């Protein structure tokens, strides 16, 4: 009896012990199972299929409930091509999953079941196709056979036809002579192909044969989708303009979007207007703020910055519009697929697309892959294929199979080089003359600066614009300031502005130091000079001064009629020593007979300075060009010149390089940034610090530009086009 009781006691504790042991065992097995599956997956990722397979099989042998190992094995077997075995594994996985769901409902989710079910379906389909293939004895298993839809034809009868029928019914007829002329006119208006470009005669441009060839190639061979990668300064904008105008004249396009960097928006607008007679609206226009979403839909000719277009509220509207043509300038900003820039351009619907950049490759080969894929998806196959084909492993910039890559690129990319088109430009030399302000001048300048700083953040947008203008005028001449003070600020009976006006009236002699230096420069040589100033009042001041010193002058500004402009340029060419011009002057005019210029005052946007220099330092100039910059010490222009001249040697750069360096600054607008620094700096030390920091940024941008040139040379070399 005693013994039986002992056994009973022993059974219960034993059961508990067995239970604990069993739990422990299950836990250990589970851990082992999971480690086998994990290791198997990592072997799979490395491509070691056999090792992965043996690990999955080990896991399965543990007879554990979790179906992961069956599932992984199934996928692996599909990869190996062992379809039937894969089917069995996946079936087991599915059974395991269903069992788990029944017995342990919280343990497995429906989507996980779905994954396995899909895998099974796929496998069953493959088995079916393989059976069919065996039956027919030929390879019909083209489950990926591509369906090519037929070309759609749409017939349209002109709505105006009805009116002509009415005219005939009413017997409203004209003489036979007009009917004949009508027939001849209809025949003349029909043009086949793009052999004769209509845009050239109706554009105000000096064009070169290589630009015409580029336009024809894009129109005829590339069907309007092309990558224009001419070297800096060769006129990609002109080429894009010719193509655009051609399409417009032939009725192919009516809805146009041009995207560029913020600093070039106004330049594009001007070029399109001056050179091609095309009037665009930009996102810098006040209308954009008023119209908001309607802006994109309502306006057919739009230039916008990438920065503005990619904003969420604008992007979604742009993506819904069907554009006829999309032009993206500085397209190297689309080099990375993960950026908003890329995603925006990729999602825009447009029949024709032009991408413009002088440097299609900036960091590595993947960038050109991304850009070409944007234009023609699949042209360079997939990224992995591209890397395998053209990149040496481990070096993102190295290149192999160069010829094959060039051949592929030549089907959608055009690159003209200076050497090839035989364009040589002489050197340019710049000298900055820093002039000391007299006490009175300093006083006046400081009064203006303090006034601007005090009022700026308190003012409306319109007044801010005039305060900025006043600051610019302060280093030009008192006359220029006086006008602004009187018209825009004087009427408000503002105490300080009234004081300034009085001061200005009494001190009109301020600014004469610059005039004296100017006279010295002009008298030092017999050469002709082009003098630039931003303001009409300064222009008159300089004109009167020079005339009083017996120097024959011509003027050029926006107030002159076309005939007057022609006449004055002719006078400058044939008789006069000096042409005093405002910003508007010279564009499209042939001034290469002159090789010296003076910047009497300086615009804050380096691109404007570049444009000024570009009036005489351009294709057609045969002599070295000399640039004199006059600036007053410790003024905003002085700091600008220090940055541009001393930091990045702007005046020694090739035409267009400045634009590219600024382009590397992405969303920073140079002139706005400089003015912000000027306004926000409380002390001179503060100002120097901030300017120094901005200078570092510019240097970085320049450094980046140098690196880009190196990689570029490797791919495109000097013989790309041949």
């Amino acid at each position, binding site marked *: 009896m005693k013994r039986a009781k002992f056994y009973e006691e022993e059974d219960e504790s034993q059961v508990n012990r067995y239970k604990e042991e069993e739990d422990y065992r299950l836990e250990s097995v589970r851990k082992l199972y999971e480690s086998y599956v994990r290791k198997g*997956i990592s072997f*799979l*990722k490395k491509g070691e299929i056999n090792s992965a397979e043996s690990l999955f099989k080990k896991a399965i042998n543990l007879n554990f409930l979790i179906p*992961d190992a069956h599932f992984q094995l199934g996928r692996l077997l*599909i*990869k190996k091509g062992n379809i039937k075995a894969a089917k069995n594994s996946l079936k087991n996985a599915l059974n395991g999953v269903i069992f788990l769901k029944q017995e342990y409902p919280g343990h497995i989710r429906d989507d*996980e079941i779905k*994954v396995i079910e899909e895998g099974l379906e796929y496998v069953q389909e493959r088995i079916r196709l393989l059976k069919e293939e065996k039956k027919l004895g030929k390879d019909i298993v083209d489950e*990926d056979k591509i369906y*090519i839809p*037929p*070309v*759609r*034809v*749409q017939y*349209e*009868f*002109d709505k*105006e*036809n009805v009116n002509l*029928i009415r005219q*005939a*019914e*009413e*017997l409203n*007829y*004209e003489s*036979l*002579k*007009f*009917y*004949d*002329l*009508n*027939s*001849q*006119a*209809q*025949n*003349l*208006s029909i*043009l*086949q192909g*793009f052999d*004769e*470009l209509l845009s050239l*005669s109706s554009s105000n441009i000096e064009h070169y044969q290589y630009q015409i060839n580029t336009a024809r190639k894009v129109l005829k061979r590339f*069907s309007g989708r092309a990558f224009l990668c001419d070297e800096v300064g060769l006129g990609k904008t002109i080429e894009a303009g010719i193509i655009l105008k051609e399409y417009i004249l*032939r009725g*192919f396009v009516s809805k146009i979007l041009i995207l560029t960097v913020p600093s070039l928006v106004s330049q594009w607008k001007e070029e399109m207007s001056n050179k091609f007679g095309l009037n665009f609206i930009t996102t810098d226009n006040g209308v954009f703020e008023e119209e908001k979403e309607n802006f994109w839909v309502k306006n057919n000719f739009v230039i916008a910055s990438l920065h503005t277009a990619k904003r969420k509220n604008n992007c979604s509207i742009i993506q819904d519009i069907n554009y006829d043509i999309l032009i993206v300038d500085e397209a190297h900003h689309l080099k990375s697929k993960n950026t908003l820039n890329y995603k925006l351009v*990729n*999602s825009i*619907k447009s*029949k024709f697309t032009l991408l413009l950049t002088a440097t299609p490759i900036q960091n590595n080969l993947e960038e050109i892959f991304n850009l070409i*894929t944007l234009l023609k*998806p*699949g042209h360079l*196959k*997939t990224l992995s*294929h591209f890397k395998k084909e053209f990149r040496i492993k481990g070096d993102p910039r190295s290149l192999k199979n160069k010829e094959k890559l060039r051949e592929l690129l030549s089907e959608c990319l055009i690159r003209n080089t200076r050497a090839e088109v035989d364009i040589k430009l002489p050197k340019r030399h710049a000298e900055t003359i820093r002039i000391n302000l007299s006490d009175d001048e300093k006083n006046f300048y400081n009064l203006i600066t303090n006034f601007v700083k005090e009022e700026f953040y308190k003012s409306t947008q319109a007044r801010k614009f005039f305060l900025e203008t006043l600051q610019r005028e302060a280093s030009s001449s008192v006359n220029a300031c006086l006008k602004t003070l009187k018209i825009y600020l004087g009427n408000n009976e503002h105490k300080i502005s009234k004081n300034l006006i009085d001061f200005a009236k009494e001190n009109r002699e301020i600014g004469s130091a610059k005039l004296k230096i100017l006279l010295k420069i002009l008298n030092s040589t017999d050469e002709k000079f082009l003098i630039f100033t931003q303001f009409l009042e300064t222009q008159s001041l300089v004109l009167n001064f020079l005339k009083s010193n017996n120097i024959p002058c011509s003027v050029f500004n926006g107030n002159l009629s076309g005939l007057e402009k022609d006449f004055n340029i002719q006078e400058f060419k044939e008789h006069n020593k000096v042409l005093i011009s405002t910003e508007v002057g010279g564009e499209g005019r042939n001034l290469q007979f002159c090789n010296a210029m003076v910047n009497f005052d300086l615009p804050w946007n380096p691109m404007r300075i570049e444009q000024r220099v570009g009036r005489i330092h351009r294709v057609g100039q045969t002599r070295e060009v000399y640039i004199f910059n006059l600036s007053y010490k410790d003024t905003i222009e002085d700091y600008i010149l220090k940055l541009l001249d001393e930091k990045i040697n702007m005046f020694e750069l090739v035409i267009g390089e400045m634009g590219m360096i600024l382009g590397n600054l992405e969303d920073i607008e140079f002139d706005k940034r400089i003015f912000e620094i000027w306004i926000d700096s409380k002390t001179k030390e503060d100002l120097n610090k901030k300017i120094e920091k901005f200078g570092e940024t510019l240097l970085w941008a320049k450094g980046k530009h140098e690196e880009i040139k190196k990689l570029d040379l490797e791919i495109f070399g000097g013989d790309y086009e041949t």
Partner: protein
Amino acid sequence: MRHDINLFCRNVFESIGCLVDLKQDYFDVIIPDEIKGQFEDKDYIKFFYNKENVKGERSEFLHIGNPLISSLINIAQNKGKFTCFSLEGLPTTTGNLQEKILRKISFPNIKAIFKTQILTNSATALFNFKITYLHEDKFEEIKTIAINLEPLGLNEKFFTSNYSLYISEKCDFLSMKDYTKNIQRAYEIACKDLIKKQELTTEKMKLELQKKLKREMERIKEYYKENSEEVTKKLGRIGIQDKSRERLNKKLEVLRLEEKTKILDLEEKYKLRNLFKLLSIALVFQPKIRAHFDALYKDKRLELIVFWDPLLKDVELPYCYACNKQTKSLYYSKNLDKFTCKECL
């Protein structure tokens, strides 16, 4: 071509009231104030035939693409859209007309008994169409279609004749009015014929476009297929409960949508749009000989009219009432109670 533009421009300038003075290397034009707005407000222009000779103010090179010439072409295109003229001096007599008709046309199920013939006026409408084939490029052609206004039907032989020898601007206004009621119907017949005429060109273009579409479509599909396969492979390598599964599935979805968009873009790009624009109409009046027949079908007696065309010097084949085509064999259709061809019987 140069001579054509030269002559054309001078003619148009003169027709709109400008004074044209012809010189050796150029011609100059004085433009009246009322219309100088159409020529960049210029009242005097010199058009040079050679670009090298162009000099001085108000001088232009005469060529297609010059905005002034484009304005001129535009002016000419907006004039002379509808005109009338007649053909005079045609030989209006012919012998043995009945025999000629019966030899030319067969009447299988009717008995045609010649009654009489009279000289009458007839009209043909010439419709000038411009067909624009618009795809990624543009191709244009002009086609002229002649439709007889009585009997109403396509006149395919009109342009084989030398009608230009007989053109006269004198028109009988009273008789002209009788024909205008058929112009709308004539236009519809012309449109049907136009669509038939452009079929060959359209098919050729479709073939070319289909090739390009196929090439581009294959490229895009291949690209997205490979990309999708890469993502699918990644999915296969990770566990069921791996967190990146959702991201990869989303990527697959994005690829699918992107592919769809690109394909739609391609279909749109390679779509062919054929635009038909009626440029001008000319009504041409000419005499014809109208032969009247009694057409007997069982116990029915009907009137049948056949024309002799003095311009073509031939019998004009009659038109089937149903399909409007000219037919050499004319049948009486009991169902329609009209004369038809064999196919429409």
